[in-house]
């Protein structure tokens, strides 16, 4: 058991915290000091109340996106290796550039635009289940959840879906292992950018019809074609932001449903509940924590923050604040008001949320259709990833 005071020394990679961060978050949130601080992992502040986290997300002029990873050198001075000029727009951009960095990609992600990925997502989910349904057991995380978003994103980007396992390895290198080891992160980043460098070069030589990368390369801003680094950066972000996140949320939702037959029954009996159920599962199992860099010395909720300090925005913490949500630790598909911030808030609010919701809904619907009754094989054997993205990594179920 940890005896350290989490308000001054929290550790987001402590194995106990990774498995279940909420007792620690609750302890911080109800303490005298709901904005915790730590020196670990490059140092950070961590607000735990909904209102404070949303304020950090919305006040982008004070809390900048110069660095958004939860660990590492806070000032972004880490050597970035090859392709040092390529970032991850719009997530790594600040105003004024952020505006066009975001606006150019939004049309690809509007609800009407992502609807066309519904049939391939459904087909994909069925084909994954075909592989294990006769065995009576499967790893709901590795054999199912993990396999879905990477293929949808590859389809969207027009890159080979049969490289999915490689992409998954790269993304985990950036967002999981790479958070504790800069070398691993830089290697994964180099692989991703090297791959997209070649893809972009191919589109410049051979433009394609109805292709996201070609469309981006041809887009203009103030009468000029956008820089190639921007297009590479967007591809980089779509892969990194669209894979681990969505798969974690599918995985955690299945983990929940495996343990709650009453919720499975509710969805079977009343399919109209689906949209609200998806929002409630996103609230409860919000996977993403982002970071901000403080622009100038300020006092925030009594805490002296200095220019260059890192602030974590734990959306999982915000979504469990009893000041905002009644019975925050209960899943309630009929929750009246659900202002959850799983997708963040303010100008960086997730651009891919309509796609993420679609994937989450189809993945769960197809699973429940094919495997209506299932349970965890061994609850204590389930493993989780934490840090920037929280979700199941091994979660065997039997049916």
């Amino acid at each position: 058991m940890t005896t350290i005071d989490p308000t001054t020394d929290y550790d987001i990679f402590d194995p106990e915290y990774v498995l279940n961060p909420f007792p620690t978050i609750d302890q911080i949130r109800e303490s005298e000091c709901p904005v915790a601080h730590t020196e670990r992992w490059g140092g950070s502040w961590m607000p735990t109340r909904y209102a404070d986290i949303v304020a950090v997300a919305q006040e982008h002029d004070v809390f900048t996106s110069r660095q958004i990873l939860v660990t590492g050198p806070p000032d972004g001075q880490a050597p970035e290796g090859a392709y040092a000029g390529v970032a991850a727009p719009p997530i790594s951009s600040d105003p004024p550039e952020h505006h066009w960095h975001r606006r150019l990609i939004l049309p690809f992600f509007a609800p009407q635009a992502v609807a066309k990925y519904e049939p391939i997502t459904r087909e994909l989910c069925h084909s994954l289940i075909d592989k294990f349904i006769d065995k009576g057991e499967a790893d709901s995380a590795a054999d199912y959840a993990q396999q879905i978003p990477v293929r949808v994103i590859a389809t969207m980007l027009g890159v080979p879906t049969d490289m999915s396992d490689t992409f998954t390895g790269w993304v985990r290198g950036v967002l999981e292992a790479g958070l504790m080891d800069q070398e691993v992160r830089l290697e994964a980043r180099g692989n991703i950018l090297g791959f997209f460098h070649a893809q972009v070069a191919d589109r410049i030589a051979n433009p394609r019809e109805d292709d996201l990368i070609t469309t981006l390369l041809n887009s203009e801003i103030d009468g000029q074609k956008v820089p190639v680094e921007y297009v590479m950066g967007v591809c980089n972000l779509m892969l990194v932001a669209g894979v681990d996140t969505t798969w974690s949320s599918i995985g955690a939702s299945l983990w929940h449903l495996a343990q709650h037959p009453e919720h499975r029954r509710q969805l079977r009996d009343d399919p109209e509940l689906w949209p609200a159920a998806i929002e409630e599962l996103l609230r409860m199992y919000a996977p993403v924590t982002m970071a901000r860099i403080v622009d100038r010395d300020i006092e925030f909720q009594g805490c002296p923050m200095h220019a260059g300090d890192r602030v974590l925005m734990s959306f999982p913490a915000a979504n469990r604040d009893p000041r905002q949500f009644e019975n925050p630790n209960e899943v309630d598909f009929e929750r009246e008001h659900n202002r959850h911030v799983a997708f963040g808030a303010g100008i960086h609010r997730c651009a891919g949320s309509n796609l993420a919701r679609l994937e989450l809904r189809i993945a769960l619907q197809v699973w429940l259709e094919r495997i209506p009754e299932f349970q965890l094989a061994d609850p204590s054997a389930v493993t989780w990833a934490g840090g920037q993205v929280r979700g199941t990594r091994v979660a065997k179920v039997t049916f």
Partner: protein
Amino acid sequence: MKVQLDYDACHGHQSCAIAAPEVFGADDYGNAVVLIEGDLPVELETKARRAEGNCPERAITLIDS
């Protein structure tokens, strides 16, 4: 009841359209648009309230008329 939308505060969560698809839609950028100008039919008021209570940016205001 009328719906008022603060377009500067809206960042396109679409929580409103999920709660009340008859009242809210999306433009080409995924930001909210109000589909019903003027008074809402009474039977949509409950859904509109739910939409208001789901918007993380508090961009929606309902005006009782």
